[in-house]
């Protein structure tokens, strides 16, 4: 059974315009470690949350009536986590995280919970969860070793073309649609800031193709209203070393699926 609890410490976002991002609680807090006082230690997605909050802060600085903001939801994805609900709430409040609400669900119903909450992006460190949710049409990204050590001053999003991240799943038309609409909103957010000193940076990487593949991807993103700050064309060179320098918080690859080279 799913229960949704609002975080009373945080002002709720306007549901029509906000961009709902759900992060698996196991990524936000270390489940094993305790910071003392029933408070969990920071998890790998902590800098990501701080970066999302930074974007919101700066958006409101530009326009105090801004409604295009990130609406951050903490979601549990198994019954063990679900049972730790009070610790999760108290830990969130302890760190002053801008989480609007909590979805306490189990492995059976967390996907349902995502859909009900109109989640536009789901982030988790669990490969299976990401695979499942993606197949159900929810835009999802895996937080892996490259994305978990990023600083929190700037949200760094990477669009990746032609990388085989999840070889077992092909993005569905629904997830491609979800990808494009999330990306378009991200593009709009990016437009609120100037070229330098932006709290949000959008990068593009093409892994296998050459310059024309990258040029095509730049044009595709432009047609979706997304201005890319950084572009990397690898033409087959290893991704690892480049990703270690790039350090994105998460990687989106569903925008380009189905497009011919």
């Amino acid at each position, binding site marked *: 059974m799913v229960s949704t609890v609002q975080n009373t410490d945080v002002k709720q976002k306007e549901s029509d315009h906000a961009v709902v991002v759900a992060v698996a609680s196991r990524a936000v807090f270390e489940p094993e470690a305790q910071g003392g006082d029933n408070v969990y230690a920071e998890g790998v997605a902590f800098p990501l949350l701080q970066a999302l909050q930074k974007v919101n802060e700066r958006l409101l600085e530009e326009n105090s009536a801004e409604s295009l903001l990130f609406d951050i939801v903490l979601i549990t994805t198994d019954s063990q986590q679900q049972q730790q609900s009070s610790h999760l709430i108290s830990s969130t409040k302890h760190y002053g995280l801008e989480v609007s609400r909590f979805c306490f669900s189990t492995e059976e119903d967390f996907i349902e919970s995502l859909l009900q909450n109109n989640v536009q992006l789901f982030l988790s460190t669990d490969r299976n969860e990401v695979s499942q949710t993606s197949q159900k049409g929810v835009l999802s990204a895996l937080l892996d070793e490259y994305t978990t050590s990023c600083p929190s001053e700037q949200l760094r999003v990477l669009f990746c073309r032609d990388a085989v991240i999840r070889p077992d799943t092909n993005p569905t038309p629904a997830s491609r649609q979800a990808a494009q609409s999330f990306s378009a909103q991200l593009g709009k957010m990016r437009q609120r800031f100037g070229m330098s000193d932006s709290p949000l940076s959008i990068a593009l990487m093409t892994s*296998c193709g*050459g310059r024309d593949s990258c040029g095509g991807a730049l044009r595709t993103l432009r047609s979706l209203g997304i*201005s*890319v700050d*950084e*572009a990397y064309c690898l033409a087959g*060179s290893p991704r690892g*070393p480049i990703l*270690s*320098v790039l350090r994105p918080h998460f990687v989106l690859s569903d925008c380009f699926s189905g497009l011919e080279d």
Partner: protein
Amino acid sequence: MVKMSLDPVQVMSGQVTELKVAPSSNGDSRGSWEEKEEFDQDHLGLTAKPKPPKPENAVTIAVSSRVLFRTEREQKVFEQKGVEEYLRYQIEHENEPFAPGPAFPFVKALEAVNSRLRELYPQSEELFDIVLVTYNHAHVGIRLINTINHHNLFIERFCMTGGSSPIGYLKAWHTNLYLSADADKVREALAEGIAAATMFMPEKLTEVSQSQLRVAFDGDAVLFSDESERIFKAHGLDKFFEHERENEDTLLDHGPLKGFLEALGKLQKKFYAKGHRLDCPIRTFLVTARSAASSGIRALKTLRAWGLEIDEALFLAGAPKGPMLEKIRPHIYFDDQMFHVEGAAEMGTIAAHVPYGIAQKHNAKQNTGVRK
């Protein structure tokens, strides 16, 4: 001034043993590179063009957009009107290709060498790999891609970092040489152990070979360390000569571009192995103010001990380098002193400044006349 054209059979390169080649067709060379023969069946997208080599196998040359192409007009927009206007201008002119910049002839020559290498060693990845590394914003990306297409350059890899330092990416791509218009970035690269030089656009350009890559190097503080230059600057010419004589048999320490000369040498040996010593499409030159009879000996002994061949060594004994370079017509000439870089440029040679060593402290103060 003595010009010594060293046939590799003579003294200096007597140390170099001829490469023994196995009868296999792809001519594997020994050395630290690992030859990987792979057919990547899953490879997407590049069926018509040759596949770019793995960075660790190739000699990677990273060039910035301002040295590969001429972007003075756009630079002015950036300086006078700021970044937003600069990017708007770039997008407006997206379909206008840039004109070739100072590194362009060098890149074309690298590609000519690659064609010859591919003919002789079709499976080998020991090639030049030219990558564009710029801290330009990706808004300029489409214009840069259009320009590369227009000039028919074989550049399939690039980084546009949108303002952050490109140094991490240079390392990730095992960069062997980095050319940029920005002296600070070049200094950063040198500090990280990457051969790098700042390039300038000469006012006139003498014609260079289309079929043979010609690379010229200064000696001290470029191929070698700046230790001898320090002696000269601190104690004068006589002391310099004395020191060099006393230390004739002590090897000089290596300089920032030694590795690049080494990489060129490895590729040259691949041509020699297939009988192309006389018409090798790579030729290297040492252009030094040292004297052949005295201080030059230490330089030669050092190169020999390193196992590095250099095709021609020119000992100028302090004479100006400009006229000699004008005869050599290298695609690029590396020197640590701006005085020589400017002198070369005045006569139409494309020269690159290596901001390394003791000469940098003196650069700002000296303008004319002081030579080794």
